[in-house]
């Protein structure tokens, strides 16, 4: 009945630094299906798709398109073969219009001049055909994330792509937006397009995909009809063992107030109010989750709380002491730990050893004022590697040789080895495999039992629901909801708050 359209066999990819991303991987795609490519982070899904799109050169292996062997050396070749890709991080020029972006590099010209009129018309035509409402002359920088994603898809379609690769397309979307996006995909499928979705969200796989290929450690694990496999089975295949999915936090009676934020306002240059008179508190043993679509003030709040930004009004008390004018080091010394959002930029030094990465915040504990005590460093790093189960050869191994999950364990090990009184965890499990997520969640809950107050910023709703004692929803620099009955709220309702469609009349902050 259905015929094989695309086949990748025996694909291996070994990176320059020795990391094996794909090890004899295999995938077969049928025409006109939505195919999920699932696996933990670091399982090699993205690499496999990058090879298909010509961004990475495979070390070995063959690709067949309609039973003919093809060699894809660049995205241009992929485009000419009808393969398009939408990256997780959009590849758009914010300063240009939608039409210009869609035809970037393939501009329609007339007498050596760019024919803007024709381009606008073409975009309108395409958008209409696929039921997207988008204005071709709008500047891309002004668009919402959903619309940007549409531009990316249009870009691929305008290049006559028949196979669309989508790399974690729903990672940046709210639940409502995700549903809308899925309708779009259904429409594309009806028109005969073939779609490959890289994802690790099991409910989405169940909802929209026809078949699924599961990868683990760069290897092909299995290919299944989605109807014939349960979510539990998928996750088992992905990690190779049973995973307790949601680690529920047990009730802990909150203690004294650790963090008190009072009337915090931040105005950026240009007069935009990014934080508008924010007040809230966080107690010992309590996990307060800051929820919201990205760009609604959470990042600015974290920057202020951790000492990166000192230009604000209002005050923040940590254990009763104002942190205004205090340096990052002073704030850390007051018992605040910080798991940063961007792991490779702030969380670790990639070209240093694991040991060097573990001691960066506690230099004074491992030195006598001048000299670093080798024995103490050895103790700290052995302790970190063992109690945080960091997979590595030894502590002298450089961090850039580790997988994403193990890198994040290095960060968590460093930030939590000394029990902090406040832990600011900004997307602590983003881009981390299921095993590591479970481990990190356990660590955070364990800290609560030791009276740590936790401020969690997360866009992963599963994480929010399993960990949070309280959810504060941010919208346009305001807290629009303070949800104390986390167990009773649904994802949809939370989504309404996050999108600013609903707000609590009187938000009580306590």
């Amino acid at each position, binding site marked *: 009945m259905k015929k094989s359209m695309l086949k990748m066999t025996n694909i291996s990819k070994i990176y320059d630094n*020795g990391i094996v991303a794909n090890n004899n991987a295999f995938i077969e795609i049928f025409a006109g299906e939505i195919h999920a490519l699932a696996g933990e982070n670091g399982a090699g899904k993205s690499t496999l798709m990058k090879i298909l799109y010509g961004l990475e050169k495979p070390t070995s292996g063959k690709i067949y398109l309609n039973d003919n062997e093809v060699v894809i050396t660049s995205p241009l070749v992929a485009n000419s073969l009808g393969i398009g890709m939408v990256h997780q991080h959009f590849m758009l020029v914010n300063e240009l219009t939608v039409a210009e972006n869609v035809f970037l590099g393939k501009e329609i010209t007339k007498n050596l001049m760019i024919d803007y009129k024709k381009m606008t018309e073409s975009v309108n035509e395409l958008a209409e055909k696929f039921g997207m409402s988008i204005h071709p002359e709008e500047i891309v920088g002004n668009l919402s994330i959903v619309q940007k994603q549409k531009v990316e898809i249009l870009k691929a379609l305008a290049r006559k792509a028949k196979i669309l690769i989508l790399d974690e397309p729903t990672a940046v979307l709210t639940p409502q937006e995700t549903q809308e996006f899925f309708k779009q995909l259904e429409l594309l499928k009806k028109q005969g397009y073939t779609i490959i979705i890289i994802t690790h969200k099991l409910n989405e796989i169940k909802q929209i995909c026809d078949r699924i290929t599961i990868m683990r450690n760069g290897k092909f694990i299995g290919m299944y009809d989605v109807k014939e496999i349960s979510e539990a089975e998928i996750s088992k295949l992905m990690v190779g063992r049973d995973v307790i999915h949601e680690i529920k936090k047990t009730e802990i009676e909150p203690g004294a107030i650790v963090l008190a934020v009072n009337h915090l306002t931040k105005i950026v240059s240009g007069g935009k109010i990014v934080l508008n008179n924010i007040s809230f508190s966080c107690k010992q043993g309590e996990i307060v989750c800051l929820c919201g679509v990205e760009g609604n003030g959470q990042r600015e709040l974290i920057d202020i709380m951790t000492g990166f930004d000192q230009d604000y009004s209002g005050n923040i008390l940590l254990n009763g002491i104002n942190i205004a004018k205090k340096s990052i080091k002073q*704030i850390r010394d007051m018992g605040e730990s910080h798991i940063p959002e961007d792991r490779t930029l702030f*969380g*670790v030094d990639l*070209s240093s050893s694991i040991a060097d990465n573990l*001691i*960066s915040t506690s*230099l*004074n504990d491992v030195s006598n004022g001048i000299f670093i005590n080798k024995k103490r460093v050895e103790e700290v790093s052995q302790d970190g590697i063992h109690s945080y189960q960091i997979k590595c050869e*030894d502590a002298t191994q450089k961090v850039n040789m580790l997988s994403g999950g193990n890198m994040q364990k290095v960060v968590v090990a460093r930030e939590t080895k000394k029990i902090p009184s406040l832990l600011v965890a900004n997307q602590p499990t983003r881009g981390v495999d299921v095993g590591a997520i479970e481990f990190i969640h356990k660590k955070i809950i364990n800290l609560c039992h030791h009276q740590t107050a936790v401020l969690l910023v997360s866009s992963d709703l599963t994480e929010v629901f399993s960990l949070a004692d309280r959810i504060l929803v941010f919208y346009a620099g305001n807290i629009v909801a303070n949800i104390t009955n986390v167990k009773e709220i649904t994802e949809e309702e939370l989504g309404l708050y996050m999108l600013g469609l609903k707000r609590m009349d009187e938000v009580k902050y306590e």
Partner: protein
Amino acid sequence: MSNLIKKGKEFFKKIIVSIKYPNHKQKSKYFNLLRTFVAIMIALLITFIILLFVSKEPFSAISTLLFSPFKSKFWFGEVLRGAVPLIFAGVAASIMLKCGQFNMIGEGSFYIGGLVGALVAIYLPVNAFLAILIACLAAIVITALFGFIPAILKAKLNVNEFVVSLMLNFIMLWVGLFFLQNYFRDESSGDIATQLIPNENRFNILLEGTYLSTGIIIAIIVVIVAALFLYKTKYGYTIRITGNNKNFAKFSGLSALSAIIYSQVIGSAIAGLGGAVEILGGIDGRFSWKSLPGYGFDGFIVAILASNNPLLAPLAALFLAYLRTGATLMSLQTDVASELIQVIQAMIIIIVAGQAFMARYKNKIFKNTEKTVLNSSGEVQ
């Protein structure tokens, strides 16, 4: 006795095992060694090809270049003597590069350090050891102060240290030359130069029959102290982390800004000390530099060859000094100009600095380990 033999055997066994089954760290060490070696070989091969064109006696030219420095004690002493300033310059550049600072102040600091060292040794009413000690300290202090200029500008105003140091070099040269010409010139020398430094205020000859002075001991001490500083102290740690990832240093609460400052101050001071040692251990017996000595640039060459590791700087410096001595001999004894050595130098640097050079081979080495890792994990499962 048998115990000692046993221990020796074990030691060699360990080395053999580490060569046969290297771990990730040893592997990258061997790889870097091999890479540098191959780069040098390629450069020498190209040199030989050039010699075939420019020389009537290419074989004797290349053998003079490569072997004559070892043929006499005097010339071997010249190799060692030539390495001393290169060691200082290399260590200075390494410390600044480790912090990610491309600072060229080594040029000017060598000049000022040499001048200050000479003046103290000539005019200060103390003798011998004390005079040398104070001369060196004065050179360190003055050049450290100069080093502070690009450092503070970088840290506070984010002015590019490369531009500042490059310009500052001229200021240092001409200010130094101004004082030399107007206040400290020895008219009787018939040159723009200081008076002769009293013999007892200079470094002694270390090796009879050569010009090698005891200044090389200072160089060795600097290498050891710099390595201890970089790899064993928390200040060195901060320098390394800041150089690798400034954001991470800041995030961790390390004082990245002060690391940027003290790495450049220390680098400048080491170059200044190098200048003083060079003059106090020199053949002329006085300071007569009328232009920048070029050691600031040489320091970068040494640092690149030594991959910014102070402990490897002496090796790189010796190698460079050996090539230069060989080139001098080649120009004396054959029909090839010594400038050819600049061509060889440049080629080696380009090949070594090219990160992608032999990258494919590196993949192969690492691939093999990965395979064994995969296999072993497969067995366990």
